């Protein structure tokens, strides 16, 4: 078994004449919390959509937990959990009914036990019988992470997980992500442009600019490599500024 949770080689995606992703070669070892950074339209969501099998790549290859996203899509789907930027559920159903539905689709053998464990992991017990229509954005995000980890995936994909959350919600979500990574050993791949959060949450980062990966390193090494920059935000802007568009 490979030590890489995520491997891409020359991955590209074009929409008509627009190159959304260009020759992306990336390696994320198991057990990392990887943050993919980039401005709006840099190709972050396209990358996540390809890696989660929601979108076919135009060329190149990608493997998740050793499975190819094209030829082994179903095995990839069994290996991943996914939280979209705006997570939605079936509002007429309760949280437990929604989670039971997704657990069964994932082939979880004992849905009730796994739902209890997932809700415990995201510190969200006691809301199981509530209808989703009554949930706030922060509650939906936690419910969304619970659905993503029901089948104990090897890799968790989070698309802008803190988008639209209040500071308490952001802090809680950070705590959950770190806990999932440390206690369950899940590799986490998150898209974000909140750089302060990246410093506190991620172990390594990559920077996408106009569909190209222009930087990849651990957070600690990155902070050490740019001693004249005050924060990761400054480093990001410095790296971005040095890249011809």
């Amino acid at each position, binding site marked *: 078994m490979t030590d890489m949770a995520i491997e891409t080689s020359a991955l590209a995606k074009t929409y008509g004449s627009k190159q959304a992703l260009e020759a992306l070669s990336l390696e994320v070892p198991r057990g990392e919390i990887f943050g993919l950074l980039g401005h709006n339209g840099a190709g972050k969501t396209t990358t996540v959509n390809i890696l989660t099998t929601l979108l076919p790549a135009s060329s190149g290859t990608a493997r998740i937990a050793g499975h190819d996203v094209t030829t082994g899509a179903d095995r990839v789907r069994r290996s991943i959990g996914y939280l979209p930027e705006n997570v939605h559920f079936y509002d007429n159903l309760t949280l437990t009914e929604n989670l039971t539905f997704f657990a069964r689709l*994932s082939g979880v053998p004992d849905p009730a036990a796994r739902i209890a464990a997932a809700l415990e992991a995201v510190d969200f017990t006691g809301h199981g019988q509530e209808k989703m229509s009554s949930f706030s954005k922060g509650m939906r995000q936690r419910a969304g992470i619970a659905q993503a980890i029901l089948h104990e995936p090897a890799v968790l994909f989070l698309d802008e997980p803190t988008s639209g959350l209040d500071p308490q919600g952001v802090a809680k979500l950070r705590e959950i992500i770190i806990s999932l990574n440390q206690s369950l050993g899940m590799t986490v791949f998150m898209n974000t442009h909140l750089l302060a959060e990246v410093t506190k949450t991620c172990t390594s980062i990559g920077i996408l600019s106009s569909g190209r990966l222009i930087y990849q390193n651990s957070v600690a090494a990155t902070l050490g490599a740019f001693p004249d920059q005050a924060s990761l935000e400054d480093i990001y802007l410095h790296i971005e500024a040095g890249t011809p568009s």
Partner: protein
Amino acid sequence: MTSLITLCGKELRDLSRNRSVRLLILFLAVVVVLSVLVAAADFRTKTADYTSYLAALKASGGAVNAPPPDLFPLQMLRAGMEYLEIVGSLFAVILGYGLIAKEKNNGTLELLFTRPLARHSFAAGKILAALIIWTAVTAALFAVITAALLIAGNAPLTGTDFIRLIIAAGHTIIYLTLWSLAALALAALTRAPATGLVLALVLWLVVVLVIPQIGDTMDPDNQIPGGLFASLQIDKAHEHAVMANFTGYETSRDLIEQASLTKQYERPLFAWLGIKDQYNQQSPAFVWAGTFNHTLWLLAGFAAAAAAALLAGTRDKLLRKA
């Protein structure tokens, strides 16, 4: 198979709690049952009039044997069946559209399609749910209208009548599900589900209203209120003799009507219920022989709609952005 049942079960639970769906089905049930109750009350009055007329005749010592009026209980269902044909199919379109639109508009497709689902299980789950919903609604409606015939109409239903009602219900299930599946397929095929709804409504308009209306307008007997032949006091035998001179015209009119799946539903339905005069009081074998081709066309339409829904409801087609 497990994911199909899971998807279908979720759909049924979701639909059963959807207020709009409940309201539409309740409205349909009220108009259908109300129309049958009105017809049943009229039937009951006519039966009572005949009974009291006979009693009065007997009391006056009259020796004339008054023939009973032509009262056929299943004919009371005509208006109710027309509501199912037009309003029911419209609601079926809305329901079918909703099955896809809610997933596309809410963004739940992304959560679904990052699960290991078989290629067609998403659409198959929706198709099965639509079939179950319309089977349940139709079965409940036919049970209520049968009770209305028996209780409100005091109608003497025979065993054959019950079989005719079951066959009519079967045709109705196929017809209504067909419309839901056609709308589902169009909502899945178009990038924006609202575009699919507009296309489905145009299709509904053409098939349910426009084509049958053209056929009705071309019918010589419909040129005068009350019927051309009746107003000229021409009996059936002579009417057929007259029409024998217009076979080409009648064939064209028939073909136009048959282009509408609504007519393929209505013809066997009205035949089995005895609403169409030529099939009234005829044996089931006679009705089947005269209408099985329409039933087969209806089934073919259902199969086509199901195939379209199955092919349109795949991951790659549904995940295209609006």
